[in-house]
């Protein structure tokens, strides 16, 4: 039985409820039961959130939890704790596990294991095709029945347009989005970073921006033709954005995400050959990064997702070309966004909550995104002004492959509540009250 809490004097940022200011919240039986000024009550644990933001828990619709099959990289237990630390109360589990989530039993496994060992809400995503191989449709109805919230072959595109067309048509049986990783692997070939001046200097094989853009153009046309509901993962180039904007304007059912790393880092980071900078799609030049920032600020991009992709130290500590693609993001995303967008005056707190909580909940049609009365008590308490350095030894995630290691950030989550239970509390949090598995 969860405790009853009275969270007092926090600065509530809840754009869905139209609240922005100092409010008290009462949490009971996993739900927010009252929000108001100077609330009082009996039998509650009172938490003083003075000087802290209280926000709906963040929702990340792009997370690789690696379980089953690659538990050396991450597990549901470690990944969900990393999420809780970073301020996420709901995350997806991408299907490129071993075996892949192309069948109901893997979806069921992820759900069961998350209940037993996880600390945040985990929403499994099922494959579009069997084994994510892009050849034959997976049993989509089975996946949905088992609890898949979306379909994705993330990590690759379905290169055969006929297969994708059937998937989009068949997928209309279900009210679920297709989360699309857009990349023509023939154009990528054995490329390892963005193709441009920096790849030329470093002598590393380049991945042309076109590899992303041609598939985005194709997928938008296929979605338009079939009426499918698609979500573009990790947009990274200006031309991808242009294609997305045009399609949205003519009524294609499409949303798009961008990652904190593509928003803030350029391909210059690869100078020095640090494998933590190796990611798919690759870090792009400044003009692309600036276009992404602009699109985020003007509201073209729907949401921020991390594409949290943990790898072991051994896998990343080798020659650049041999190291796997991917970087972690759950524990740095909020700090990066606050540092680069809030503290620079580019985004308001309400917009950040929209981008990292409200909109992801809407796309996945899952609870969350607000703390109005009756909502699940999924919330975080954030210190906007705390300055911290990203350090390898501080990560809870098994993956230490973050390009932000050594960078200074401002703003950090101090405590995370999921369904009325504290699942993370920083030593810097000004109260006690953590129960459950910590």
């Amino acid at each position: 039985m969860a405790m009853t809490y009275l969270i007092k004097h926090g600065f509530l940022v809840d754009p869905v409820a139209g609240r922005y200011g100092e409010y008290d919240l009462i949490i009971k039986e996993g739900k927010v039961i009252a929000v108001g000024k100077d609330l009082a009550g009996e039998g509650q644990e009172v938490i003083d959130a003075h000087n802290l933001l209280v926000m709906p828990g963040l929702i990340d619709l792009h997370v690789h939890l690696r379980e089953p099959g690659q538990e050396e990289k991450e597990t549901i237990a470690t990944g969900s704790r990393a999420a809780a630390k970073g301020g996420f109360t709901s995350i997806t589990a991408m299907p490129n596990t071993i075996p892949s989530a192309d069948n109901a039993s893997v979806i069921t496994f992820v759900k069961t294991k998350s209940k037993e060992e996880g600390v945040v809400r985990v929403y499994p995503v099922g494959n579009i095709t069997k084994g994510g191989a892009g050849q034959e449709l997976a049993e989509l109805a089975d996946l949905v029945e088992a609890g898949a919230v979306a379909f994705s072959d993330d990590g690759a595109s379905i290169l055969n347009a006929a297969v994708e067309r059937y998937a989009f048509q068949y997928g209309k049986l279900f009210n679920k989005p297709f989360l699309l990783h857009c990349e023509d692997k023939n154009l990528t070939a054995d490329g390892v970073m963005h193709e441009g001046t920096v790849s030329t200097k470093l002598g590393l094989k380049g991945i042309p921006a076109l590899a992303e853009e041609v598939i985005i153009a194709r997928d938008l046309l296929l979605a338009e033709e079939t009426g499918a509901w698609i979500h573009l993962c990790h947009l990274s180039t200006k031309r991808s954005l242009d294609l997305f904007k045009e399609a949205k304007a003519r009524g294609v059912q499409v949303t798009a995400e961008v990652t904190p790393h593509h928003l803030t880092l350029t391909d210059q980071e690869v100078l020095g050959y640090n494998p933590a900078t190796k990611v798919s799609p690759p870090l792009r030049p400044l003009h692309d990064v600036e276009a992404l920032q602009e699109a985020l600020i003007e509201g073209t991009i729907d949401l921020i997702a991390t594409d949290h992709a943990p790898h072991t130290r051994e896998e990343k500590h080798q020659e650049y070309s041999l190291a796997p693609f991917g970087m972690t993001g759950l524990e740095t995303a909020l700090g990066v966004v606050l540092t680069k967008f809030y503290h620079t005056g580019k985004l308001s707190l309400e917009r950040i909550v929209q981008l990292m909580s409200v909109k992801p909940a809407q796309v996945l049609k899952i609870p969350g995104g607000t703390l109005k009365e009756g909502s699940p008590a999924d919330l975080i308490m954030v210190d906007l002004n705390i300055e911290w350095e990203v350090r390898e030894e501080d990560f809870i995630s098994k993956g230490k492959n973050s390009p932000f290691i050594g960078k200074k950030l401002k703003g950090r989550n101090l405590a995370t509540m999921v369904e009325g239970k504290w699942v993370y509390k920083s030593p810097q949090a000004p109260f006690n009250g953590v129960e459950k598995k910590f």
Partner: protein
Amino acid sequence: MSFSRKHLLGLENLEAKEIIEILNTAVPCKDIIKREIKKLPTLRGRSVVTLFFEPSTRTRISFELAAKRLGADTVSIAVNTSSVQKGENFVDTVKTIEALGADFIVLRHSVAGSPQLLAETVNCRVINAGDGAHEHPTQALLDLFTLRERCGEIAGLNVVIVGDIMHSRVAKSNIYGLLKLGAKVTVVGPPTLLPPGIEELGVRVMTNLDAALEEANVVNVLRIQKERQQKGLFPSLREYTRLYGLTKERLAGAPQDLIIMHPGPANLGVEISEEVATDPRSVISTQVTNGVAVRMALLYLMSGGENGDDLFN
């Protein structure tokens, strides 16, 4: 002044005066090679390990001879690339080699950036003997030495580099070195073999070799790898030769005193005809000899020697 770098990973970050010091030091080194007794005790008791993850005969032997002539012990390790693919870990391998007592590791590797990873991993000195499409600094140094020997001055020379610029570490290091010493550089090749953004390094980019040769003082012909054709970057070796091969006919339109270079090994009849490779204007075999001198100079300077004074003893 002495050369104070711990490692030589590339020419990109060297200053002109550092390059000149290496070239100056290579002059007495070359004299030593010409002596009857070609050996000095400068590096006695030191060990130089050549660690080659890619097959190469001439670069490895050149380093070994350079080290031996300075009195060092040399060990040559050739790691089969297939065993790397089988999971032999680079970091583990190089830590082992260091633990065995290497003072220098000379590394050749197909993956760009490996020398940097090596330098971050071990405490001994690292010399890059070619990493992927990144840099091959000692090849560029020996090319610069050869040009200085031949022309006296590098500043003002028009140097054409022709061929597979995209995949060439030799081109990259040559571009850095030549530009730092004041030469003008033109890269020439089919559009599919010209890397994006190469002009930002400060070179002129052309696709017509005949036009490029008109004002050239030097042409450096790069080796063309057959596998590039297999990847569809150009239609056939035959057509490549027709457009970019250095032949007697093509030389007719070039200045009479054009200097012809090739880093070797040459595909005779493909990027360069045998006739041209053995033409009096070709310095290809001089380049090979100078490679030993330049590598001696480098090992000498990196061991703490100054100005090459005691090389004359």
